């Protein structure tokens, strides 16, 4: 599953930041995962635990903040909330949507000790 590739990338980002800040351990990693992004949080937890084993992020808490989806609806001429890909505009029912937010997968911050 690709969550493994994502977890490996996360670890690289986290290790680099920890080294830059002369930290020996990473105790927490906070992610922003959009509701419309390509990731399954459970699988990501599982893979994160697996890849961090033996690293300086071994045992780190993984916190995932979910950001809601948002899209520009052409008929409405406005930004509307979007719960999931494939859903229509909750206001007018159109599928003429362009996603404006909620598809990010970002490492926001880490706690080091």
């Amino acid at each position, binding site marked *: 599953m690709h969550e493994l590739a994502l977890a490996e990338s996360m670890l690289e980002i986290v290790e680099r930041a920890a080294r830059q800040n002369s930290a020996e351990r990473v105790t927490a990693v906070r992610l922003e995962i959009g509701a419309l992004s390509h990731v399954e949080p459970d699988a990501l937890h599982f893979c994160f635990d697996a890849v961090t084993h033996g690293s300086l992020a071994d045992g780190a808490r993984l916190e995932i903040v979910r950001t809601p989806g948002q899209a520009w609806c052409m008929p409405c001429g406005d930004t509307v909330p979007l719960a999931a890909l494939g859903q229509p505009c909750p206001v007018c029912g159109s599928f003429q949507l362009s996603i404006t937010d909620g598809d990010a997968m970002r490492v926001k911050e880490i*706690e080091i000790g």
Partner: protein
Amino acid sequence: MCTTCGCGNSEHLHQHADGTWHSHVHDGGSTHGGEPRYVPRPPMAAHAPLIRPSRIVQIEQDILAKNAGFAAENRRYFSDHGIFALNLVSSPGSGKTTLLVKTIAAWQERTPLAVIEGDQQTSRDADRVRAAGARAVQINTGKGCHLDAQMVGHALTSLAPSDDSVLLIENVGNLVCPAAFDLGEAHKVVILSVTEGDDKPLKYPDMFRAADLLLVNKIDLLPYVEFDVDAAAGYARRVRPELEVLLVSAQTGAGFGEWLAWLERGLGRARTRREVGLDLLRRRVSELEAELERVRSPAHEA
């Protein structure tokens, strides 16, 4: 221990039945009901007996930033060399490789056409493509479920495609994971065969959203299956309103006129990009030469 879910950790993630997530802290033994809420933990709190001060380091970096970097390098390479690169994605068994083989034959070397093949194991697909007359490099991902931009970058070093050529990248057969990985391609082309079910775009929205072209393959079998082409296209356009759709049969060659015309148009755009790039370079060189003249001139040195 949380008396609601029985977990022993003092902090974890919960998913509710309506699909929303929240992270929360338990005060040992309390139940949690009502509105989900995110309670940020103060940096000094810890579950360990020793309270060690911890620092927060802001990162704000996209998880796939590294892949995006490699993809950008590939994209620059394609642009500089006038290469029209496509990322072919689909479930296993949609007919991608047969489509490739037939495309190579039909293209009839109007320009060079090279292939990068992705599979977990074997070089069977690359062998088939080479037998059809195109140069190919096989990437074996082992346990991997998708190609990434770094793998493609390495393959390009071996393959060294010609200038003004078509490059077809056949991704690992998988309708889920490749959607997240930019390879530097001009377009993702999603291939859906009529034996797969017309509701695939509803079940795998990420992939259809990521694509610019939907190739409906095996249309020669339409009389024998319950596949509603308009429904499938409609479902796909829910997540990708601008999606182009072409109907083909790699078996019979039906629809290949339009498919090859689509390839030609894309190649034309890639060539133009290279020429525009060269033009800009020439102009910049002229500007620099003029500047150099000016700096070197006796009038300037005096």
